[in-house]
């Protein structure tokens, strides 16, 4: 399969390269009219929809964002080959595919989207609020207190607290909020990175994650995992159950912990 992408898709790929990665790999998964980006620690899955004028991917392709080298590439014998021409020469960068395949990512994504349909909280945030947050602080709390949306960061090095609340319509618009909600946490870098490509986004908290979407052009949506304020150090819920094996064959572990 040979692919040549346009500048918009190139900017999506570049975005995946630029996202926080701690020296690990963000991955890109192209399938049909969808491009998924999965970040390095799997706390975000973002989906970009191709526009009508853009050609859908004939077959699925997954690669590591850092490998991305040029808008022209092909898949051959399971390898991704990026091609770049310069004068009378051509460069071919041959890369292995990403560890997960695009079909699995799409399936998982749709599963989460189905879950989110049971939730109808909704609020909008615009890029302005990011400049009020401290990118160096690992987490941002999201809560609704007395019907008012609050973003809060606790600086564990100095003890200071940053609170961002709506001043007037325009900075943070709120709709369909409960009287109280949260607090739930998100990784600050995940959250801020959403506004690199979009000025304003709609958010729907949905249990363990938040659905985010571009409500104007409707060509982007994504999932951002919540961070929980509990006393559990395990990353994966399925390991909380005792005995047996998980669906993916991992042994479940019995963990002793205080209530």
């Amino acid at each position, binding site marked *: 399969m040979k692919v040549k992408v346009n500048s918009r898709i190139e900017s999506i790929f570049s975005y995946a390269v630029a996202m926080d990665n701690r020296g690990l790999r963000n991955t890109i998964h192209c399938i049909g009219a969808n491009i998924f980006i999965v970040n390095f620690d799997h706390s975000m899955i973002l989906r970009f929809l191709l526009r009508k004028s853009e050609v859908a991917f004939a077959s699925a392709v997954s690669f590591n964002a850092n490998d991305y080298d040029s808008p022209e590439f092909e898949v051959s014998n399971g390898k991704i080959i990026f091609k770049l021409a310069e004068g009378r020469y051509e460069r071919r960068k041959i890369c292995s595919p990403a560890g997960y395949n695009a079909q699995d990512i799409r399936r998982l994504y749709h599963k989460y989207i189905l879950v989110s349909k049971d939730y109808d909280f909704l609020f909008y945030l615009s890029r302005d609020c990011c400049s009020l947050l401290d990118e160096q602080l690992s987490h941002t709390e999201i809560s609704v207190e007395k019907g008012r949306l609050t973003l809060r960061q606790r*600086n*564990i*090095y100095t003890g*200071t607290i940053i609170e961002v609340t709506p001043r007037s319509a325009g900075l943070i618009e709120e709709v369909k909020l409960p009287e109280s909600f949260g607090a739930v946490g998100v990784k600050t870098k995940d959250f801020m990175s959403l506004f690199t490509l979009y000025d304003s986004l709609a958010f729907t908290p949905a249990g363990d994650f938040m659905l985010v979407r571009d409500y104007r052009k409707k060509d982007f949506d994504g999932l951002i995992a919540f961070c929980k304020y509990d006393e559990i150090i395990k990353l994966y819920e399925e390991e909380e159950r005792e005995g047996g094996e998980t669906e993916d064959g991992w042994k479940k572990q*019995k963990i002793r912990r205080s209530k």
Partner: protein
Amino acid sequence: MRYSELRKLTSRIIPGLRPLLRADREARAVREKGRKKNYSQFNLLLGEWRKQERLLDTEEINSFLEISVRAAACPMPFNLDVWDGLICPFRCIYCYANAFRASLYTAFFDNSKSMGLRHCNPDYYKRELDKMQSLRGAADPHSLSGIRKAFAMEIPIRFGIRFEDFLRQEGRKGISLSLLEYLKDTAYPVMINTKSDLIGRDEYVRALSENPAGAAVHMTLLSPNDEINKNLEPAAPSYERRMKAARTLAAAGVRVVMRIEPYLFLLNDNTEDIARYAEDMLSAGIKNITFDTYSYSALNPGIRQDFINRGYDFDRLFLAGCDSQWLGSILLEAYMEEFRKRGVSCSTFDLGNVPNNDQDICCEVSDIFRSGWNYGSVVMAARYIAAREGKPVRWKDFRDWVNEKGGFLSEALEREVHELWNIEGNTAYSVRWAQGMIPVGWDEDGIVWAYSRKTDERRNLINSLKEGITL
């Protein structure tokens, strides 16, 4: 605040991630430097292909005694390397020594992967130690420096600082044993760090218990929960085996100090486990324990990934227990208190807690060795200032006290400790981290410190952070 309350509060400050899908990957402590096997290069001058390789001695460690690079902070920095290897067979996932070795050996040598385990030449060590015996008890150690001075001051020699010295191979070869016997015969004090129960075997117990200068064993054991231990230290002996070895040593009169290092937030801090641990060690006749928070050196992508592959949120435990030095320190204080209230003597190298340590030497061995220490270190400086509560303490007061005790181990070390006194240099080890330290003046040598137990920046931090949190 009790530990359980502080744990809950900190959990409300630093959340735990729940990824959307598993994020397992191969965990490598270090990106190796792409060394090639059988690599040759054409040499233009010689006009021939030459094999390009630099080989590590895979059989023998050529080093000798050393003063630790952390001597500016540590009162017991006199180390002896017996065993070495690229990867320690216990494969503890939190250990950054493996990462350091991998980085060092694979960067400079072409055969590091085939080295297996190697050990020192004990005969060479003994010959060199023999040459230094006449220094012991020197009337004026000031004329000496480095390892000669440490030996003259009879600072206990430590085994197992960079590698486990009591592996199965040691049980067959007896290299560490022969050195322990030499130290016993020459009545030189010794202290061991280990996770191995080999140390509970008769010949090792005898070599330690019959040392007239005293012997101590730090038995690292993170939790009584073997499921956690198995995840964190996949090939190290079980809780029962290590506790049994510790009991045997204690019964023979060896000072056994249990060691929880690292303390890992939400992992080895379950209150039921703490109670069982304290109960078991006391019933084994062990009354001393030492702790530390996780080291910043562990912030390594491979170590992080190893935790993730076992389903643990490395970022959360690292943020709480290490990245914020004050937060990690106050958590450790409350954690230690859980042991203290059960009658265990507790100390730590964590500077925030050093003024409250139950012993001057954070290894909990102050009372068993009659030998010298590295008095010219930040831990000792913090203890010196704390012991003079409410009074201004100048650098020259401390320096004179160190000199009365034999002096700094080297001029370079004196300069380094002086910098740390003045919050310069590697500030992670600065005197200011010790809680209760207040800069009250300035003289020609820099900051004048005073100690007040009522001052604790860590409490101010936690009080600020809990704003708006209802538990």
